[in-house]
């Protein structure tokens, strides 16, 4: 009885969505438009011993719409995680990425899944950008088996090996030498890919970071 009600309500909401989409597509066909748009970025780059990249970026409406969808999804995911944390359904640590989603989405748009990403403990959105599902995120945050680390890692230990996402690290700065290692392996195997090792201003105090830079 309840299940049939759920099924009918979901079809009703699908019905609700359909006319809206079609209305938009009739009035303004933006979601599938692939005509190139040139965007000039607002803040100029500063560079150190290299040329600044060009400020004009080629994109199209469809791509921008996927960016927006991803950004909005990540934002809502983080806000939901915040509420769950305050309700004590997520315990321990929960470092949120809301406000920085554009970094993950923008980076992902420029690279492939063959390139490696490694980051610190603020990893929820980076994981999603690398192809993680919301189910895996929330299951992991709540310590369930369906989580990306089978509930054993928690907020700070999200990994996705098949799309070269190497985590998810709790100790400040410890991920940078690991990132150096990922790059070393890529050079060793002549992979033609790159590694992105992300860190924050706290990790900028760590000696191991500068050691890793030196080795790189």
């Amino acid at each position, binding site marked *: 009885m309840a299940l049939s009600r759920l099924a009918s309500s979901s079809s009703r909401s699908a019905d609700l969505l359909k006319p809206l989409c079609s209305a938009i597509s009739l009035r303004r066909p933006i979601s599938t438009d692939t005509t190139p748009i040139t965007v000039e970025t607002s803040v100029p780059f500063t560079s150190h011993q290299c040329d600044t990249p060009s400020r004009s970026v080629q994109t199209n409406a469809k791509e921008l719409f996927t960016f927006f969808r991803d950004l909005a999804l990540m934002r809502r995911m983080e806000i939901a995680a915040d509420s769950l944390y305050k309700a004590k359904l997520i315990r321990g640590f929960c470092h949120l990425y809301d406000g920085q989603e554009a970094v993950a989405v923008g980076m992902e748009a420029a690279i492939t899944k063959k390139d490696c990403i490694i980051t610190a403990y603020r990893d929820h959105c980076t994981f999603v950008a690398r192809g993680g599902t919301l189910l895996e995120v929330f299951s992991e945050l709540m*310590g369930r088996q369906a989580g990306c680390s089978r509930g054993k890692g928690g907020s700070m*230990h999200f990994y996705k090996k098949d799309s070269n996402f190497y985590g998810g690290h709790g100790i400040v700065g410890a991920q940078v030498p690991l990132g150096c290692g990922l790059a070393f392996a890529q050079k060793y195997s002549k992979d033609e890919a790159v590694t992105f090792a992300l860190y924050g201003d706290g*990790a900028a105090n760590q000696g191991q970071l500068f050691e890793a830079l030196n080795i790189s």
Partner: protein
Amino acid sequence: MERDLRVCVMGEDVGHYGGSYKVTKGLAKKFGDLRVLDTPIAENSFTGMGIGAAMTGLRPVVEGMNMGFLLLAFNQISNNCGMLHYTSGGQFTIPIVIRGPGGVGRQLGAEHSQRLESYFQSIPGIQMVACSTPYNAKGLMKAAIRSENPVILFEHVLLYNLKERIPDEDYICNLEEAEMVRPGEHVTILTYSRMRYHVMQAAKTLVNKGYDPEVIDIRSLKPFDLYTIGNSVKKTHRVLIVEECMRTGGIGASLIAAITENFNDYLDAPIMCLSSQDVPTPYAGTLEEVTVVQPAQIVTAVEQLCQ
């Protein structure tokens, strides 16, 4: 800090924030930014800095925000803190106190639930103590600061909220003495830090079942108080060790060796040791609970030991 101007504190967020667990609350306001120093996130460096300062005669108290972070300072603690007194032929003493919260908390994840006492115990030249009550925390801290030796004081993440009426005046607890928590006749239960509370909870059940356990909080992890422990073994002839360290290479393992070496003739049964599982602490609450010793297991162990 009032008594001795050479005592200073350094660590992450110890100053303006008052400490991540509020241990140094109000101190920066009272003693200033230099005596209560906020350090960057660079454990290897600021621990080394503390040791260097101690070599000249200052008495720093270095805080690791979590004991696990001190792994980054292991080289400094082992080679400099532990060994300099020896390698300099006694010229330098290192009157430093290295302290911080460790142990398994509530779903903090593997990296933030470590028990560093197992790793540090082999370092020659350092002394290790673990506090478990507000009373012995104050006493051991004062004793550690006044000691000329480098002391590592292990606090526990889950014990900061304990409340107890303690004397306002100056007192110290002997750094090398164990604490008799509950005298008894049937079995000696040796424990420390948070497991003391699990043991006392199990003791209530045991008393109802007719057993009379003697509970000793060993407090001194290095060196062991073999005098108190020995007297207890001679009385009860049965030993159960309950610890939060992992099975392999923990404090329990060393304690078993020490007791067997010295008091083997007084034992009626092999020593039993309950430790945490040899796994990284899982995040999931149900799994985390299983990796740590629970009161029910302690009761079963005593029953088994006293058969």
